[in-house]
């Protein structure tokens, strides 16, 4: 049986970061969270009714800032999942959190509620950089938060880091990496800053107020991350993700392996029954709809045919260092990947970007940072 995940979107933030293009609203009243939680619980219940597969192996609270939820709210949501779906007893339950928004009470509360993984948006260990990004926390808060997590027994935590920030030097990035690795996180995500034009920072780049780095520097930073993480015992398993053995993010693996997921909450995206669809962003409408036991309006993003699905398996799967298993894909789609994507594979192999390792088609390290060049050839 293929695994299925649940994503729960908390669309509130205390303030919006300069680079963020996710849907979120500034949280001005705490009552909203209470109402919203109630809405989530009803949606979970309603969605369970129309779901043919109820097994859930991962739950992921993303946002926004999900750590704005108090432990009681988190518990009610997780309980609802447990009650209306079949939540695996070993399920990975991740909560995204800002370093400043977690204290020891919250941490033990979350833990009590079932959260067993924390993804910490550290982003940088430099206060100036944090300020530029519009983050609310400071470097010192990362340390205190991590310390608290470890003390409360949450060893499975991730740190998000960003590189390629305007003005950032390679050695500055190295310094950030060193500080992160010194904390010995189970998981580390290193994201190149890529700006959407609609974000405040994207606008500044467009108007020339700030300049992004030269791609040679960005590539150097990327390679540095891979080298340093590997040396520190973190294995790269996806283009931007590193982990200790057995600590890869199981929820995100679902995305990269093109498995199903149910998105709960305003603006959340689901992928079930060949369709990818998105709940409406309007959180107020979301709450009022669910008060009347009505599911929020959805927007269908994609209705995928066999070819589309195959393309997605490749595009997403090749992001993983393990690549795509040819036999499993054949079993899943009854298509010979080697034949179906003959041209693309040949193109990639000719350039040393693709290789076949023990039955898996995967990208070579030299292809990672230019992966669009080869991934685009697998589109439907």
């Amino acid at each position: 049986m293929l695994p299925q995940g649940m994503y729960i979107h908390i669309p509130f933030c205390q303030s919006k970061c300069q680079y963020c293009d996710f849907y979120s609203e500034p949280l001005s009243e705490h009552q909203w969270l209470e109402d919203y939680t109630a809405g989530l619980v009803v949606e979970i219940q309603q969605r369970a009714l129309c779901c043919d597969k109820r097994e859930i192996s991962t739950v992921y609270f993303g946002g926004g800032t999900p750590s704005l939820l108090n432990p009681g709210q988190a518990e009610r949501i997780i309980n609802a999942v447990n009650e209306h779906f079949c939540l695996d007893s070993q399920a990975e339950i991740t909560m995204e959190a800002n370093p400043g928004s977690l204290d020891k009470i919250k941490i033990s509360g979350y833990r009590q509620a079932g959260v067993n993984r924390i993804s910490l948006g550290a982003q940088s260990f430099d206060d100036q950089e944090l300020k530029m990004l519009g983050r609310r926390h400071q470097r010192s808060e990362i340390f205190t938060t991590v310390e608290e997590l470890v003390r409360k027994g949450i060893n499975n935590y991730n740190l998000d880091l960003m590189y390629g920030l305007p003005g950032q030097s390679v050695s500055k990035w190295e310094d950030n990496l060193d500080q992160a690795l010194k904390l010995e996180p189970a998981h580390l995500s290193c994201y190149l800053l890529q700006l959407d034009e609609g974000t405040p920072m994207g606008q500044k780049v467009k108007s020339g107020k700030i300049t992004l780095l030269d791609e040679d520097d960005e590539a150097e930073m990327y390679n540095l991350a891979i080298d340093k993480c590997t040396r520190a015992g973190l294995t790269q398993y996806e283009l931007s993700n590193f982990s200790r053995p057995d600590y890869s993010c199981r929820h995100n693996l679902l995305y990269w392996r093109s498995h199903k997921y149910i998105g709960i909450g305003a603006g959340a995206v689901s992928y079930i029954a060949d369709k990818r669809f998105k709940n409406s962003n309007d959180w107020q409408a979301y709450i009022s709809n669910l008060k009347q036991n009505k599911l929020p309006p959805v927007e269908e993003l994609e209705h995928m045919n066999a070819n589309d699905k195959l393309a997605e398996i490749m595009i997403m799967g090749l992001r993983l260092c393990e690549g795509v298993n040819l036999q499993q894909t054949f079993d899943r789609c009854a298509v010979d990947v080697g034949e179906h994507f003959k041209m693309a594979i040949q193109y990639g192999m000719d350039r040393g970007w693709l290789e076949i390792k023990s039955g898996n088609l995967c990208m070579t390290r030299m292809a990672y940072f230019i992966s669009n060049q080869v991934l685009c050839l697998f589109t439907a």
Partner: protein
Amino acid sequence: MQSNIRNFSIIAHIDHGKSTLADRLLQTTGALTDREMRAQFLDKMDLEREKGITIKLQPVRLSYKAKDGQNYILNLIDTPGHVDFSYEVSRSLAACEGALLVVDASQGIEAQTLANVYMAMDLNLEIIGIVNKIDLPGAEPEVVKDEMENVLGIDRNEIIPISAKMGIGIEEVLEAIVAQIPSPAPTEDESLAALIFDSYFDSYKGAICYIRVVSGTVKKGDMILMMHNGKEFEVTEIGVLNPYMTEVNSLSAGEVGYLAAGIKNVSDTEVGDTITSVRHPARKPLPGYQKVKPMVYCGIYPLENNEYDKLRDSLERLKLNDASLFYEPESSDALGFGFRCGFLGLLHLEIIRERLEREYDLNILATAPSVVYKIILTDGQELYVSNPTRWPAPQKIHQVMEPYVKAFIMVPNEYVGAVMELCQNKRGQFINMEYLSTQRVMITYKLPLAEILYDFFDALKSRTRGYASLDYELTDYEMSNLVKLDIMLNGEIVDALSTIIHNDRAYYQARAVTERLRKIIPRQMYEVVIQAAIGSKIIARETIKAMRKDVLAKCYGGDITRKKKLLEKQKEGKKRMKQIGRVEVPKDAFLTVMQVGDE
């Protein structure tokens, strides 16, 4: 009744209102009802409408009851307004006894118009001067009349002011056609001689010829002979266009119409050829015939090699309707299999290229256009080369010659300096300068055809704020110090990027071309070195740094759809690239080698 026939053309510059006037004539004489009136009925193809020019001519027969109470048959033979098609224009004019010269009241006479009027005068046509667009705020009909009188000797008092758009003066034009244009001259010879002034291919009837009968009569069932072409056919249908095809029993001396004879190939119906009867052939063909020769060549390649057959079929179909299109298979090391295509000029090239892409849905790549060079080898052998790839090794060349044109440029006098500078930059030799009026000048230059091929007209327009008009006629081949400039990508010559340039400007051009290529070729996985060389000597070099980043750093559940779309778009972009060795070259790069302006 031959005496009641009037055959005439309209000569006008682009946008001076030729098609609008033609439509008005159709409407006023009742050939088209208002309901059928579609703006510019005679221009048929979308491309013509878009470019605002008439490419194909469609003759039309009008019935007009004049003020003298008699009924007249007016045959309007439309003409294309572009230098590429001047031979076709000449044959259309040869089918007429008169021409309407239409000049925009705010623009004055343009070079192309002048060339066509001279052509009409050479053919002894009666010219009726018309000043159009008199309703526009900027109209200066009196100034334009002066110009027409000074330059062409047309009596200013006989020039008719009109507004085709508003329908002003149309009756006067019709009356002038009847009164001033002579009816077709009677001939003593009874043998059939009919001039083909255009033809096109109809999938049911075969090639359709538009003809002007000069002597004799032609009817259905006649056996006819194409005098230059030498082939014989049996007439299956004859008729007139009023404006729709209408069958008639016969066409006699002086009449204009169409003829079908089960002709499978338009190249058997050459413009300018004479149709005669097999049984009573004319003693000699009508004068003025020329074999159509392409002036400009370029390579056309499918971007995807597997579209070669489709490209061949498409060219074949275009050729059905366009006898002046030439093509033959060729292959390039860089581009694979394609075709060397010959055209009457750049506009013709552009039209064919666009039709291949739009109507035949092909993704094609065109190499830089080239003229036909004449090379005399050291062993005395003479060679014509239209493809730089076929250029002989320098040590085998004794002499190189290139085609020259005589270019006529008309401009307001304040731009004389700018125009002369441009012509000088393009290796021009000044011939003379004439004042058309106190404000307007005609400058005549001798220029290499190759220099005016690509962006000369654009440069001319931009230097004269759009006021200049240009016409040219081919003169002859002249000796020139030309060399082949090769472009190398990562050390390998890309044959399709080679061009022939003048030795004196080789360094400048080489630098300009390599720089342009550096800008247009995207970063690749490897560093790309662009070099320009003459023979084995490298004279310019540019480097494109290797691409280091092309990645979607984050890709999770919520944004998969959007990220996939980005990748799909990127794949589309790749399709517009041609893989040469390991370098992906955008298809536009092949034209940039020509785009070395005079900046």
